[in-house]
Protein backbone atom coordinates (compact mmCIF):
# COMPACT_ATOMS: atom_id res chain seq x y z
CA UNK A 1 0.00 0.00 0.00
CA UNK A 2 2.71 2.42 1.06
CA UNK A 3 4.68 1.26 -1.97
CA UNK A 4 1.72 1.87 -4.28
CA UNK A 5 1.49 5.40 -2.95
CA UNK A 6 5.23 5.80 -3.55
CA UNK A 7 4.69 4.63 -7.10
CA UNK A 8 1.74 6.90 -7.73
CA UNK A 9 3.58 9.90 -6.29
CA UNK A 10 6.63 9.48 -8.50
CA UNK A 11 4.32 8.44 -11.32
CA UNK A 12 2.41 11.70 -11.03
CA UNK A 13 5.66 13.58 -11.57
CA UNK A 14 6.33 11.42 -14.63
CA UNK A 15 2.80 12.20 -15.81
CA UNK A 16 3.34 15.95 -15.48
CA UNK A 17 6.44 15.65 -17.65
CA UNK A 18 4.83 13.26 -20.05
CA UNK A 19 1.89 15.64 -20.49
CA UNK A 20 4.22 18.44 -21.51
CA UNK A 21 6.09 16.29 -23.98
CA UNK A 22 2.93 14.72 -25.41
CA UNK A 23 1.30 18.12 -25.84
CA UNK A 24 4.23 19.39 -27.89
CA UNK A 25 4.35 16.19 -29.89
CA UNK A 26 0.60 16.28 -30.48
CA UNK A 27 0.53 19.89 -31.60
CA UNK A 28 3.87 20.30 -33.36
CA UNK A 29 5.16 16.79 -33.98
CA UNK A 30 8.38 17.69 -32.24
CA UNK A 31 9.99 15.56 -29.56
CA UNK A 32 11.59 18.03 -27.18
CA UNK A 33 14.88 16.78 -25.81
CA UNK A 34 15.07 20.08 -23.91
CA UNK A 35 12.28 19.11 -21.55
CA UNK A 36 14.53 17.95 -18.70
CA UNK A 37 16.37 21.26 -18.87
CA UNK A 38 13.11 23.19 -18.82
CA UNK A 39 12.25 21.29 -15.63
CA UNK A 40 15.59 22.14 -14.06
CA UNK A 41 15.48 25.80 -15.05
CA UNK A 42 11.98 26.00 -13.63
CA UNK A 43 13.17 24.47 -10.36
CA UNK A 44 16.02 26.97 -10.19
CA UNK A 45 13.59 29.79 -10.93
CA UNK A 46 11.50 28.82 -7.93
CA UNK A 47 14.67 28.38 -5.85
CA UNK A 48 15.71 31.94 -6.52
CA UNK A 49 12.26 33.18 -5.54
CA UNK A 50 12.30 31.11 -2.35
CA UNK A 51 15.75 32.37 -1.46
CA UNK A 52 14.49 35.91 -1.92
CA UNK A 53 11.83 35.19 0.66
CA UNK A 54 8.75 34.87 -1.51
CA UNK A 55 6.02 32.55 -0.23
CA UNK A 56 5.95 29.07 -1.71
CA UNK A 57 2.96 29.52 -4.05
CA UNK A 58 4.52 32.64 -5.52
CA UNK A 59 7.85 30.86 -5.89
CA UNK A 60 6.17 28.02 -7.74
CA UNK A 61 4.53 30.52 -10.07
CA UNK A 62 7.91 32.17 -10.67
CA UNK A 63 9.39 28.78 -11.53
CA UNK A 64 6.52 28.12 -13.92
CA UNK A 65 7.02 31.50 -15.54
CA UNK A 66 10.74 30.86 -16.01
CA UNK A 67 10.13 27.44 -17.54
CA UNK A 68 7.29 28.68 -19.73
CA UNK A 69 9.38 31.63 -20.90
CA UNK A 70 12.31 29.38 -21.71
CA UNK A 71 10.07 26.97 -23.61
CA UNK A 72 8.46 29.71 -25.64
CA UNK A 73 11.86 31.23 -26.34
CA UNK A 74 13.17 27.91 -27.67
CA UNK A 75 10.09 27.52 -29.83
CA UNK A 76 9.97 31.00 -31.22
CA UNK A 77 13.65 31.08 -32.16
CA UNK A 78 15.30 27.81 -33.13
CA UNK A 79 12.22 25.69 -33.69
CA UNK A 80 10.39 28.41 -35.62
CA UNK A 81 13.40 28.78 -37.92
CA UNK A 82 13.48 25.04 -38.47
CA UNK A 83 9.74 25.02 -39.26
CA UNK A 84 10.16 27.79 -41.80
CA UNK A 85 12.82 25.72 -43.52
CA UNK A 86 10.57 22.70 -43.53
CA UNK A 87 13.30 20.81 -41.69
CA UNK A 88 12.99 17.07 -41.33
CA UNK A 89 12.12 15.24 -38.15
CA UNK A 90 15.73 14.35 -37.30
CA UNK A 91 16.77 18.01 -37.58
CA UNK A 92 14.38 18.86 -34.73
CA UNK A 93 15.76 16.00 -32.66
CA UNK A 94 19.38 17.00 -33.26
CA UNK A 95 18.70 20.69 -32.69
CA UNK A 96 16.84 20.09 -29.42
CA UNK A 97 19.61 17.76 -28.24
CA UNK A 98 22.05 20.56 -29.00
CA UNK A 99 19.88 23.07 -27.13
CA UNK A 100 19.63 20.72 -24.17
CA UNK A 101 23.39 20.50 -23.99
CA UNK A 102 23.71 24.28 -24.16
CA UNK A 103 21.11 24.85 -21.46
CA UNK A 104 22.65 22.26 -19.20
CA UNK A 105 26.13 23.64 -19.48
CA UNK A 106 24.93 27.18 -18.79
CA UNK A 107 23.34 26.03 -15.52
CA UNK A 108 26.30 23.87 -14.70
CA UNK A 109 28.68 26.77 -15.06
CA UNK A 110 26.44 29.24 -13.28
CA UNK A 111 26.11 26.92 -10.28
CA UNK A 112 29.69 25.57 -10.55
CA UNK A 113 28.05 22.15 -10.63
CA UNK A 114 27.10 22.44 -6.97
CA UNK A 115 24.05 20.87 -5.46
CA UNK A 116 22.08 23.81 -4.12
CA UNK A 117 20.00 23.48 -0.95
CA UNK A 118 16.27 23.87 -1.61
CA UNK A 119 14.38 25.02 1.44
CA UNK A 120 11.42 22.95 2.49
CA UNK A 121 9.94 25.70 4.62
CA UNK A 122 6.39 26.33 3.58
CA UNK A 123 5.94 22.90 2.02
CA UNK A 124 3.95 20.19 3.79
CA UNK A 125 6.12 18.20 6.22
CA UNK A 126 5.87 15.03 8.20
CA UNK A 127 3.56 12.05 7.84
CA UNK A 128 -0.20 11.80 8.11
CA UNK A 129 -2.20 8.77 9.15
CA UNK A 130 -4.18 7.45 6.21
CA UNK A 131 -5.88 4.05 6.04
CA UNK A 132 -3.62 2.84 8.81
CA UNK A 133 -0.48 3.92 6.97
CA UNK A 134 1.92 6.74 7.66
CA UNK A 135 1.88 8.66 4.42
CA UNK A 136 4.18 11.65 3.99
CA UNK A 137 2.10 14.81 3.56
CA UNK A 138 4.47 16.02 0.88
CA UNK A 139 3.74 12.95 -1.22
CA UNK A 140 0.02 13.52 -0.87
CA UNK A 141 0.48 17.14 -1.82
CA UNK A 142 2.47 16.14 -4.90
CA UNK A 143 -0.14 13.61 -5.88
CA UNK A 144 -3.03 16.00 -5.28
CA UNK A 145 -1.43 18.96 -7.05
CA UNK A 146 -0.52 16.81 -10.04
CA UNK A 147 -4.02 15.41 -10.31
CA UNK A 148 -5.51 18.89 -10.06
CA UNK A 149 -3.11 20.15 -12.73
CA UNK A 150 -3.99 17.24 -14.98
CA UNK A 151 -7.73 17.68 -14.46
CA UNK A 152 -7.35 21.37 -15.13
CA UNK A 153 -5.50 20.66 -18.33
CA UNK A 154 -8.18 18.21 -19.45
CA UNK A 155 -10.96 20.71 -18.76
CA UNK A 156 -9.02 23.46 -20.46
CA UNK A 157 -8.40 21.37 -23.55
CA UNK A 158 -11.98 20.17 -23.88
CA UNK A 159 -14.03 23.10 -22.80
CA UNK A 160 -12.28 26.29 -23.78
CA UNK A 161 -11.75 28.15 -26.98
CA UNK A 162 -7.95 27.90 -26.70
CA UNK A 163 -8.19 24.19 -25.98
CA UNK A 164 -10.30 23.62 -29.08
CA UNK A 165 -7.91 25.78 -31.04
CA UNK A 166 -5.07 23.59 -29.90
CA UNK A 167 -6.88 20.45 -30.96
CA UNK A 168 -7.65 22.04 -34.33
CA UNK A 169 -4.04 23.06 -34.91
CA UNK A 170 -2.88 19.63 -33.83
CA UNK A 171 -5.21 18.00 -36.29
CA UNK A 172 -4.68 20.34 -39.21
CA UNK A 173 -2.77 23.60 -38.90
CA UNK A 174 -4.03 24.72 -42.31
CA UNK A 175 -7.70 24.27 -41.55
CA UNK A 176 -7.21 26.01 -38.23
CA UNK A 177 -5.53 28.92 -39.97
CA UNK A 178 -8.43 29.26 -42.39
CA UNK A 179 -10.74 29.54 -39.39
CA UNK A 180 -8.78 32.50 -38.09
CA UNK A 181 -6.64 30.61 -35.56
CA UNK A 182 -3.02 31.73 -35.36
CA UNK A 183 -0.95 28.52 -35.21
CA UNK A 184 2.11 30.30 -33.84
CA UNK A 185 0.03 31.57 -30.94
CA UNK A 186 -1.20 28.06 -30.30
CA UNK A 187 2.36 26.75 -30.42
CA UNK A 188 3.36 29.34 -27.86
CA UNK A 189 0.42 28.35 -25.67
CA UNK A 190 1.39 24.68 -25.95
CA UNK A 191 4.96 25.48 -24.96
CA UNK A 192 3.79 27.66 -22.11
CA UNK A 193 1.58 24.92 -20.69
CA UNK A 194 4.25 22.29 -21.20
CA UNK A 195 6.85 24.47 -19.50
CA UNK A 196 4.55 25.16 -16.56
CA UNK A 197 3.89 21.46 -16.03
CA UNK A 198 7.62 20.73 -16.22
CA UNK A 199 8.36 23.44 -13.66
CA UNK A 200 5.76 21.97 -11.32
CA UNK A 201 7.47 18.59 -11.64
CA UNK A 202 10.82 20.31 -11.08
CA UNK A 203 9.64 21.92 -7.86
CA UNK A 204 8.38 18.55 -6.60
CA UNK A 205 11.71 16.90 -7.38
CA UNK A 206 13.60 19.71 -5.66
CA UNK A 207 11.45 19.66 -2.54
CA UNK A 208 11.55 15.94 -2.06
CA UNK A 209 15.36 15.97 -2.09
CA UNK A 210 15.65 19.43 -0.47
CA UNK A 211 18.18 20.19 -3.19
CA UNK A 212 18.49 21.06 -6.85
CA UNK A 213 21.39 20.85 -9.25
CA UNK A 214 22.03 21.33 -12.95
CA UNK A 215 21.45 17.61 -13.45
CA UNK A 216 18.24 17.27 -11.42
CA UNK A 217 16.16 16.59 -14.50
CA UNK A 218 18.56 14.32 -16.35
CA UNK A 219 17.05 11.02 -15.43
CA UNK A 220 13.55 12.23 -16.19
CA UNK A 221 13.89 12.98 -19.90
CA UNK A 222 13.92 9.41 -21.10
CA UNK A 223 11.36 8.58 -18.42
CA UNK A 224 9.06 11.17 -19.95
CA UNK A 225 9.60 9.62 -23.36
CA UNK A 226 8.79 6.21 -21.91
CA UNK A 227 5.59 7.67 -20.47
CA UNK A 228 4.30 8.99 -23.76
CA UNK A 229 5.30 5.92 -25.71
CA UNK A 230 3.46 3.81 -23.17
CA UNK A 231 0.41 6.07 -23.25
CA UNK A 232 0.51 6.72 -26.97
CA UNK A 233 2.36 9.68 -28.41
CA UNK A 234 0.16 12.74 -28.48
CA UNK A 235 -2.49 11.35 -26.15
CA UNK A 236 -3.27 13.39 -23.03
CA UNK A 237 -5.09 10.66 -21.10
CA UNK A 238 -2.30 8.35 -22.26
CA UNK A 239 0.34 10.52 -20.64
CA UNK A 240 -1.51 10.57 -17.33
CA UNK A 241 -2.19 6.84 -17.25
CA UNK A 242 1.25 6.04 -18.68
CA UNK A 243 2.99 8.14 -16.04
CA UNK A 244 1.14 6.61 -13.14
CA UNK A 245 1.61 3.08 -14.49
CA UNK A 246 5.33 3.64 -15.04
CA UNK A 247 5.77 4.99 -11.52
CA UNK A 248 4.02 1.99 -10.05
CA UNK A 249 5.92 -0.49 -12.25
CA UNK A 250 9.22 1.02 -11.15
CA UNK A 251 8.32 0.67 -7.49
CA UNK A 252 7.05 -2.86 -7.94
CA UNK A 253 10.26 -3.72 -9.77
CA UNK A 254 12.14 -2.48 -6.71
CA UNK A 255 9.98 -4.48 -4.35
CA UNK A 256 9.63 -7.72 -6.24
CA UNK A 257 12.72 -7.90 -8.42
CA UNK A 258 15.54 -5.59 -7.34
CA UNK A 259 16.06 -1.89 -6.96
CA UNK A 260 18.88 -2.27 -9.49
CA UNK A 261 16.25 -3.26 -12.00
CA UNK A 262 14.09 -0.18 -11.55
CA UNK A 263 16.67 1.92 -13.38
CA UNK A 264 16.14 0.02 -16.58
CA UNK A 265 12.33 -0.21 -16.41
CA UNK A 266 11.70 2.93 -18.42
CA UNK A 267 13.94 1.81 -21.27
CA UNK A 268 12.45 -1.65 -21.33
CA UNK A 269 9.00 -0.09 -21.47
CA UNK A 270 10.08 1.94 -24.50
CA UNK A 271 11.46 -1.13 -26.24
CA UNK A 272 8.59 -3.45 -25.41
CA UNK A 273 5.84 -1.00 -26.34
CA UNK A 274 7.56 -0.09 -29.60
CA UNK A 275 7.86 -3.75 -30.50
CA UNK A 276 4.43 -4.88 -29.37
CA UNK A 277 2.16 -1.89 -29.84
CA UNK A 278 3.91 1.19 -31.23
CA UNK A 279 0.75 3.25 -30.88
CA UNK A 280 0.77 2.80 -27.10
CA UNK A 281 -2.26 2.41 -24.85
CA UNK A 282 -4.28 5.34 -26.12
CA UNK A 283 -2.60 6.34 -29.35
CA UNK A 284 -4.32 6.21 -32.68
CA UNK A 285 -2.13 4.81 -35.37
CA UNK A 286 -0.38 7.55 -37.36
CA UNK A 287 -3.03 9.96 -36.17
CA UNK A 288 -2.43 12.84 -33.87
CA UNK A 289 -4.50 13.28 -30.80
CA UNK A 290 -4.41 15.83 -28.10
Amino acid at each position, binding site marked *: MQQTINGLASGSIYALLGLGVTLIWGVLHV*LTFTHAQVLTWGAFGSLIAINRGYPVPVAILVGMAVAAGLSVLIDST*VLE*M*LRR*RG*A*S*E*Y*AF*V*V*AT*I*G*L*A*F*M*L*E*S*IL*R*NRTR*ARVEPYSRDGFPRGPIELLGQNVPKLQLAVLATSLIAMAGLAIWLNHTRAGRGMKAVAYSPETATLLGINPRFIYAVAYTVSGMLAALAGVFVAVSTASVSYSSGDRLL*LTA*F*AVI*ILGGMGSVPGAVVGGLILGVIEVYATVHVSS*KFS*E*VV*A*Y*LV*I*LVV*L*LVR*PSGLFGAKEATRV
Partner: protein
Amino acid sequence: MFEWIPAYQRFLLDVTLIDIILVISLLILFQCGLFSMATAGFAAIGGYTSALLVTDADWPVPLGILAAVFVGATLAVSFGLPVLRLRGIYLALGSLALAQVIVIGIANVGFTNGVFGISGIPTEVTTGWLVAIVAVILLVMELIHRSHFGRAMKAIRLDEHTAAGLGINVFAYRMATFGIGGAMAAMAGALEAHRTAVISPDQYDFGLLVVLLTYMFVGGVEHWLGPVLATIGFRILNENLEFAGTDWENFYYGSILVVVMLLAPDGLTSRRFTQRLARIFRRRPDLAT
Protein backbone atom coordinates in the same frame (compact mmCIF):
# COMPACT_ATOMS: atom_id res chain seq x y z
CA MET B 1 55.57 1.36 -39.35
CA PHE B 2 54.39 4.41 -37.43
CA GLU B 3 56.82 4.11 -34.55
CA TRP B 4 58.65 7.24 -35.66
CA ILE B 5 55.73 9.27 -34.34
CA PRO B 6 56.18 10.10 -30.63
CA ALA B 7 53.92 7.95 -28.48
CA TYR B 8 51.88 10.92 -27.38
CA GLN B 9 50.95 12.03 -30.89
CA ARG B 10 50.54 8.45 -31.94
CA PHE B 11 48.00 7.95 -29.20
CA LEU B 12 46.01 10.97 -30.35
CA LEU B 13 46.16 9.76 -33.92
CA ASP B 14 44.92 6.33 -32.89
CA VAL B 15 42.05 7.79 -30.92
CA THR B 16 41.10 9.93 -33.91
CA LEU B 17 41.14 6.92 -36.22
CA ILE B 18 38.86 5.04 -33.83
CA ASP B 19 36.49 8.02 -33.73
CA ILE B 20 36.42 7.97 -37.51
CA ILE B 21 35.20 4.37 -37.47
CA LEU B 22 32.46 5.32 -34.99
CA VAL B 23 31.37 8.29 -37.08
CA ILE B 24 31.27 6.18 -40.22
CA SER B 25 29.14 3.60 -38.40
CA LEU B 26 26.64 6.34 -37.63
CA LEU B 27 26.89 7.84 -41.09
CA ILE B 28 26.21 4.64 -42.98
CA LEU B 29 22.93 4.27 -41.09
CA PHE B 30 21.98 7.85 -41.70
CA GLN B 31 22.70 7.52 -45.40
CA CYS B 32 20.07 4.82 -45.49
CA GLY B 33 17.55 7.07 -43.75
CA LEU B 34 17.97 5.44 -40.35
CA PHE B 35 18.36 7.86 -37.50
CA SER B 36 19.72 5.48 -34.91
CA MET B 37 21.00 6.50 -31.51
CA ALA B 38 22.35 3.11 -30.56
CA THR B 39 25.98 3.69 -31.58
CA ALA B 40 27.32 4.00 -28.04
CA GLY B 41 25.54 0.79 -27.05
CA PHE B 42 27.13 -1.17 -29.88
CA ALA B 43 30.53 0.33 -29.09
CA ALA B 44 30.09 -0.87 -25.51
CA ILE B 45 29.14 -4.35 -26.71
CA GLY B 46 32.25 -4.46 -28.89
CA GLY B 47 34.59 -3.16 -26.23
CA TYR B 48 33.34 -5.59 -23.61
CA THR B 49 33.16 -8.60 -25.91
CA SER B 50 36.76 -8.32 -26.93
CA ALA B 51 38.08 -7.20 -23.55
CA LEU B 52 36.40 -10.11 -21.77
CA LEU B 53 37.45 -12.73 -24.30
CA VAL B 54 41.03 -11.51 -24.27
CA THR B 55 41.44 -11.02 -20.52
CA ASP B 56 39.26 -13.85 -19.19
CA ALA B 57 39.45 -16.49 -21.90
CA ASP B 58 42.95 -15.62 -23.15
CA TRP B 59 41.87 -15.20 -26.75
CA PRO B 60 44.37 -13.44 -28.99
CA VAL B 61 43.53 -9.77 -29.50
CA PRO B 62 42.72 -10.00 -33.25
CA LEU B 63 40.32 -12.85 -32.58
CA GLY B 64 38.71 -10.86 -29.78
CA ILE B 65 38.13 -7.96 -32.11
CA LEU B 66 36.67 -10.25 -34.76
CA ALA B 67 34.36 -11.71 -32.15
CA ALA B 68 33.31 -8.17 -31.19
CA VAL B 69 32.46 -7.45 -34.81
CA PHE B 70 30.46 -10.64 -35.02
CA VAL B 71 28.55 -10.01 -31.80
CA GLY B 72 27.87 -6.40 -32.81
CA ALA B 73 26.50 -7.47 -36.18
CA THR B 74 24.41 -10.27 -34.69
CA LEU B 75 22.90 -8.04 -32.05
CA ALA B 76 22.19 -5.32 -34.58
CA VAL B 77 20.46 -7.72 -36.91
CA SER B 78 18.40 -9.39 -34.20
CA PHE B 79 17.40 -6.00 -32.84
CA GLY B 80 16.81 -4.68 -36.33
CA LEU B 81 14.36 -7.41 -37.29
CA PRO B 82 11.56 -6.18 -35.04
CA VAL B 83 12.60 -2.54 -34.79
CA LEU B 84 13.21 -1.61 -38.38
CA ARG B 85 9.53 -1.42 -39.12
CA LEU B 86 9.52 1.65 -36.91
CA ARG B 87 10.05 4.98 -38.56
CA GLY B 88 11.72 8.24 -37.77
CA ILE B 89 11.40 9.28 -34.21
CA TYR B 90 10.18 5.88 -33.05
CA LEU B 91 13.34 4.25 -34.32
CA ALA B 92 15.46 6.97 -32.75
CA LEU B 93 13.83 6.45 -29.36
CA GLY B 94 13.88 2.67 -29.63
CA SER B 95 17.57 2.63 -30.49
CA LEU B 96 18.35 5.08 -27.70
CA ALA B 97 16.51 2.85 -25.24
CA LEU B 98 18.41 -0.16 -26.56
CA ALA B 99 21.75 1.60 -26.00
CA GLN B 100 20.71 2.48 -22.45
CA VAL B 101 19.60 -1.07 -21.71
CA ILE B 102 22.93 -2.41 -23.00
CA VAL B 103 25.06 0.01 -20.96
CA ILE B 104 23.00 -0.37 -17.77
CA GLY B 105 23.04 -4.11 -18.28
CA ILE B 106 26.82 -4.12 -18.51
CA ALA B 107 27.04 -2.01 -15.37
CA ASN B 108 24.83 -4.39 -13.40
CA VAL B 109 25.87 -7.93 -14.29
CA GLY B 110 28.67 -9.80 -12.62
CA PHE B 111 30.90 -11.08 -15.40
CA THR B 112 31.58 -7.59 -16.80
CA ASN B 113 32.91 -6.45 -13.43
CA GLY B 114 30.01 -3.98 -13.32
CA VAL B 115 30.71 -0.32 -12.83
CA PHE B 116 34.37 -1.01 -12.12
CA GLY B 117 34.94 -1.78 -15.76
CA ILE B 118 37.84 -3.79 -17.04
CA SER B 119 41.43 -2.66 -16.71
CA GLY B 120 44.69 -4.11 -17.84
CA ILE B 121 43.35 -4.95 -21.29
CA PRO B 122 46.25 -5.91 -23.60
CA THR B 123 47.06 -2.99 -25.87
CA GLU B 124 48.28 -4.67 -29.00
CA VAL B 125 46.40 -2.42 -31.36
CA THR B 126 48.95 -0.37 -33.28
CA THR B 127 48.64 2.67 -35.45
CA GLY B 128 49.44 0.47 -38.43
CA TRP B 129 46.37 -1.69 -37.83
CA LEU B 130 44.15 1.30 -37.36
CA VAL B 131 45.36 3.03 -40.50
CA ALA B 132 44.82 -0.16 -42.45
CA ILE B 133 41.34 -0.73 -41.02
CA VAL B 134 40.23 2.84 -41.60
CA ALA B 135 41.65 2.77 -45.14
CA VAL B 136 39.71 -0.37 -45.94
CA ILE B 137 36.51 1.05 -44.43
CA LEU B 138 36.82 4.27 -46.38
CA LEU B 139 37.63 2.41 -49.57
CA VAL B 140 34.54 0.27 -49.11
CA MET B 141 32.49 3.39 -48.32
CA GLU B 142 33.66 4.95 -51.57
CA LEU B 143 32.87 1.79 -53.54
CA ILE B 144 29.43 1.66 -51.95
CA HIS B 145 28.93 5.32 -52.69
CA ARG B 146 29.54 4.67 -56.37
CA SER B 147 27.70 1.39 -56.62
CA HIS B 148 24.11 0.47 -57.12
CA PHE B 149 23.99 -0.21 -53.39
CA GLY B 150 24.91 3.37 -52.60
CA ARG B 151 22.38 4.82 -55.01
CA ALA B 152 19.71 2.56 -53.58
CA MET B 153 20.58 3.75 -50.07
CA LYS B 154 20.27 7.34 -51.18
CA ALA B 155 16.92 6.63 -52.81
CA ILE B 156 15.68 5.05 -49.59
CA ARG B 157 16.88 8.01 -47.56
CA LEU B 158 15.19 10.52 -49.83
CA ASP B 159 11.91 8.70 -50.27
CA GLU B 160 11.30 5.24 -49.00
CA HIS B 161 8.10 4.67 -50.97
CA THR B 162 9.54 5.78 -54.28
CA ALA B 163 12.54 3.56 -53.61
CA ALA B 164 10.25 0.63 -52.98
CA GLY B 165 8.42 1.50 -56.16
CA LEU B 166 11.72 1.28 -58.03
CA GLY B 167 12.02 -2.32 -56.95
CA ILE B 168 14.47 -1.71 -54.13
CA ASN B 169 14.00 -4.09 -51.24
CA VAL B 170 13.96 -1.37 -48.61
CA PHE B 171 13.82 -3.71 -45.65
CA ALA B 172 16.77 -5.81 -46.84
CA TYR B 173 18.88 -2.72 -47.43
CA ARG B 174 18.07 -1.30 -44.05
CA MET B 175 18.75 -4.61 -42.38
CA ALA B 176 22.12 -4.87 -44.07
CA THR B 177 23.03 -1.31 -43.17
CA PHE B 178 21.93 -1.78 -39.59
CA GLY B 179 24.08 -4.89 -39.31
CA ILE B 180 27.10 -3.19 -40.85
CA GLY B 181 26.66 -0.13 -38.64
CA GLY B 182 26.41 -2.30 -35.52
CA ALA B 183 29.46 -4.30 -36.55
CA MET B 184 31.53 -1.19 -37.19
CA ALA B 185 30.57 0.48 -33.93
CA ALA B 186 31.40 -2.73 -32.08
CA MET B 187 34.75 -2.92 -33.85
CA ALA B 188 35.54 0.67 -32.90
CA GLY B 189 34.63 -0.15 -29.30
CA ALA B 190 36.93 -3.16 -29.32
CA LEU B 191 39.80 -1.24 -30.88
CA GLU B 192 39.37 1.50 -28.30
CA ALA B 193 39.45 -1.03 -25.47
CA HIS B 194 42.71 -2.42 -26.79
CA ARG B 195 44.20 1.01 -27.18
CA THR B 196 43.31 2.70 -23.88
CA ALA B 197 43.57 -0.50 -21.80
CA VAL B 198 40.63 0.43 -19.55
CA ILE B 199 36.90 0.45 -20.21
CA SER B 200 33.96 1.16 -17.98
CA PRO B 201 30.24 1.56 -18.67
CA ASP B 202 30.17 5.31 -18.03
CA GLN B 203 32.23 6.13 -21.12
CA TYR B 204 29.42 5.02 -23.45
CA ASP B 205 27.05 7.76 -22.38
CA PHE B 206 24.82 10.19 -24.22
CA GLY B 207 27.72 12.64 -24.53
CA LEU B 208 29.53 10.24 -26.87
CA LEU B 209 26.52 10.21 -29.19
CA VAL B 210 26.36 14.01 -29.20
CA VAL B 211 30.02 14.29 -30.14
CA LEU B 212 29.59 11.79 -32.97
CA LEU B 213 26.47 13.57 -34.23
CA THR B 214 28.42 16.81 -34.23
CA TYR B 215 31.23 15.31 -36.29
CA MET B 216 28.76 13.79 -38.71
CA PHE B 217 26.54 16.78 -39.29
CA VAL B 218 29.35 19.29 -39.42
CA GLY B 219 31.03 17.08 -41.99
CA GLY B 220 27.86 16.47 -43.97
CA VAL B 221 25.98 13.25 -44.50
CA GLU B 222 26.26 12.87 -48.26
CA HIS B 223 29.82 11.61 -48.51
CA TRP B 224 32.16 9.98 -46.01
CA LEU B 225 34.94 12.48 -46.60
CA GLY B 226 33.14 15.30 -44.78
CA PRO B 227 32.66 13.50 -41.44
CA VAL B 228 36.20 12.12 -41.64
CA LEU B 229 37.66 15.58 -42.09
CA ALA B 230 35.37 16.97 -39.38
CA THR B 231 36.54 14.28 -36.93
CA ILE B 232 40.18 15.14 -37.64
CA GLY B 233 39.48 18.86 -37.49
CA PHE B 234 37.67 18.63 -34.15
CA ARG B 235 40.47 16.53 -32.67
CA ILE B 236 43.05 19.13 -33.67
CA LEU B 237 40.82 21.90 -32.29
CA ASN B 238 40.35 19.95 -29.07
CA GLU B 239 44.07 19.65 -28.55
CA ASN B 240 44.61 23.33 -29.13
CA LEU B 241 41.63 25.15 -27.73
CA GLU B 242 41.17 26.17 -24.15
CA PHE B 243 37.54 25.19 -23.99
CA ALA B 244 38.18 21.54 -24.63
CA GLY B 245 37.42 19.44 -21.61
CA THR B 246 35.79 22.26 -19.72
CA ASP B 247 32.17 22.55 -18.81
CA TRP B 248 31.78 24.81 -21.80
CA GLU B 249 32.75 22.05 -24.19
CA ASN B 250 29.20 20.71 -24.10
CA PHE B 251 27.96 24.20 -24.77
CA TYR B 252 30.08 24.44 -27.90
CA TYR B 253 29.04 21.04 -29.19
CA GLY B 254 25.41 21.89 -28.48
CA SER B 255 25.56 25.24 -30.22
CA ILE B 256 27.39 23.75 -33.20
CA LEU B 257 24.60 21.21 -33.59
CA VAL B 258 21.93 23.90 -33.42
CA VAL B 259 23.69 26.17 -35.88
CA VAL B 260 24.37 23.39 -38.35
CA MET B 261 20.74 22.26 -38.20
CA LEU B 262 19.64 25.82 -38.95
CA LEU B 263 22.11 26.51 -41.74
CA ALA B 264 22.58 23.13 -43.34
CA PRO B 265 20.50 20.26 -41.95
CA ASP B 266 22.35 17.82 -44.18
CA GLY B 267 25.74 19.02 -43.06
CA LEU B 268 28.15 21.71 -44.08
CA THR B 269 29.39 19.85 -47.15
CA SER B 270 25.92 18.98 -48.42
CA ARG B 271 25.18 19.99 -51.95
CA ARG B 272 22.23 22.08 -50.83
CA PHE B 273 24.39 24.16 -48.53
CA THR B 274 27.39 24.50 -50.83
CA GLN B 275 25.13 25.56 -53.67
CA ARG B 276 23.55 28.16 -51.45
CA LEU B 277 26.95 29.41 -50.46
CA ALA B 278 27.99 29.48 -54.10
CA ARG B 279 24.90 31.51 -54.97
CA ILE B 280 25.68 33.97 -52.22
CA PHE B 281 29.22 34.40 -53.46
CA ARG B 282 28.18 34.62 -57.08
CA ARG B 283 25.67 37.27 -56.21
CA ARG B 284 28.25 39.49 -54.66
CA PRO B 285 29.73 40.95 -57.87
CA ASP B 286 26.19 41.78 -59.00
CA LEU B 287 25.64 43.77 -55.88
CA ALA B 288 28.89 45.60 -56.43
CA THR B 289 28.04 46.69 -59.94
